[in-house]
């Protein structure tokens, strides 16, 4: 049984097929990359998995259970957490409270307040933000806001973590740090699916890659296979 499985997932906005008939799976412990040109439907696919939208048609299964059309908060409590392409932090709240929210609400087993505090502090240490714990989140740099989103997502104790362009807008040093962070999360046993434009990052971190183009899956394989695939090269260079 796959951890997450999508069968013929599609969605249309107006006349436009944002995602059409995409089938995919992710196994426990994998790091799956999702790439494709702008407007290929990557973030839309994330939004479908986290139930911002309901696929029509299509079925999503998490650990064999049908999760199609469930409320986003239930999806989160089941163990699927995400970050956002454009950061969606709780800007006026202290950094630690951002993480505490994830810890207090993100799981069916709700921890006591002190326990949630402890977990949040540990996670902030893990992503390297413990020094700015009490700063309002809006005052962080973009790189740190993205780390905060990761910490917040991890606080919900997910089995599957979806990272949407974690490295976009970061400088080379920050990209290297972010790659390290992804590996560390993987080593904790958390399955990852990530959207990324930074090719170096995705090639070195992911075990398997799916390529989307115009809402369709056009290729799937190991980083080597994708790097040598004719269709993929055409899509990227042809535009």
């Amino acid at each position, binding site marked *: 049984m796959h951890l997450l499985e999508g069968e013929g997932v599609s969605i249309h906005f107006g006349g436009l097929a944002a995602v059409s008939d995409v089938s995919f799976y992710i196994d426990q412990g994998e790091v799956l990359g999702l790439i494709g040109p702008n407007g290929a439907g990557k973030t839309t696919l994330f939004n479908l998995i986290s139930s911002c939208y309901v696929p029509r048609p299509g079925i999503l299964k998490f650990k064999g259970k049908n999760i199609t059309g469930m409320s986003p*908060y239930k999806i*989160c409590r089941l163990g699927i957490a995400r970050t956002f392409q454009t950061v969606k932090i709780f800007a006026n*709240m202290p950094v630690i409270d951002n993480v505490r*929210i994830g810890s*207090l609400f993100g799981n069916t087993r*709700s921890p006591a307040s002190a326990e949630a505090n402890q977990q949040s502090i540990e996670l902030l240490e893990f992503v390297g933000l413990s020094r700015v714990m009490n700063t309002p989140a809006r005052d962080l740099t973009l790189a740190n806001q993205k780390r905060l989103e990761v910490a917040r997502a991890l606080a919900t104790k997910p089995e599957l973590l979806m990272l949407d362009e974690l490295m976009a807008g970061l400088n080379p040093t920050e990209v290297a740090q972010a790659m390290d962070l992804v590996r560390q999360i993987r080593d904790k046993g958390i399955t990852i699916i990530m959207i990324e434009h930074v090719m170096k990052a995705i090639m070195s971190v992911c075990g398997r890659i799916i390529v989307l183009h115009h809402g369709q899956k056009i290729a799937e394989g190991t980083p080597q296979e994708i790097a040598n695939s004719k269709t993929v090269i055409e899509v990227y260079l042809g535009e």
Partner: protein
Amino acid sequence: MEDLMVIINLLALVYLGWFVDWTLKQNKSKIWLFSGLALIMLAILSTLPNYGPTYSYIMMSGILMYLILTVSWTLFSGPTGYISLAPAAFFGVGIYTSAILGKDFPVLVVVIFGGLLSVVLAAIVGALTLRLKGIYFIVFTFGLVLLISSVLLWYEIRFTGTRGRFITTANNDLIYYVMLGITVLMFITSYFLKRSKYGLALQSIGQNEEAAAHMGINVTAVKIAVFSISAIFMGMAGAIMAMKWIYLDPYSAFDPFRSFLPVLMAIFGGMKQFYGPVLGAVILAFLEEKLLTEFPYYYKLSFGIVLILVIIYLPDGLVGLGQKVRAWFSRGKIALT
């Protein structure tokens, strides 16, 4: 002299508001001092009818009414940023409950019933308006007040052949005690809500509703629940306040100004701290009681000007101004040393 008594009682209220903020702090010192002071303030407030002239506690009841509307409005709208113009609807439901049940039931039963009926209305409204955001939510809640009052008016004229009805009145001191009781209950409820994880959830909804949902918060349920809780106090206040009047009609029971004023009072005081809206309501309601009858136009004119200035220059209200002044002084000190 009478005004001085009222002012002392108002200061006591502001202290209690500040005390709620203080109890929510992490590291507290001088616990005995501050808690003792809170008890003294409570004693001052609850014995007012024993030492103050009738005029003083009639006036206090009027001010407490605005305080209850303002603080309970802020309970939901402060953190979430959903500007509700429904307070007049919940208040009006309380008034009408009182008008209908007042002659057959004891005061407390009527008051509790007024609160409960408001909760029912709030839960329905909350469930219906979830999809509405920003300006849509605001105009919906505004329209709701007018809808209820015009339907009631039509119903009364058409089916009972009358306009308005008489109310069984209660003693002024009883009204004051009940008002104070509702206020204290509201302070305690606010304290527990702010302390709980749902207070945090409410804040996060105001900051980014989508992210809140993806963090496992049942946004819908939290919003409806807190919206309904805030309506309890408004309904109860309406039910007891009605007993001060002899006669009412739908227009006076569902006066949209009771929706606007709490919003303005909360902004004036500042919504970052719990005592901000308390301060705003207390000052403006006191001025209203003193000036509205004598200089209505000048009072409302300056009210409008102050409001515009506060929105532009003091987004955090009087409390924010106080903090700015304090920061400015402490910076001055550092420069001196």
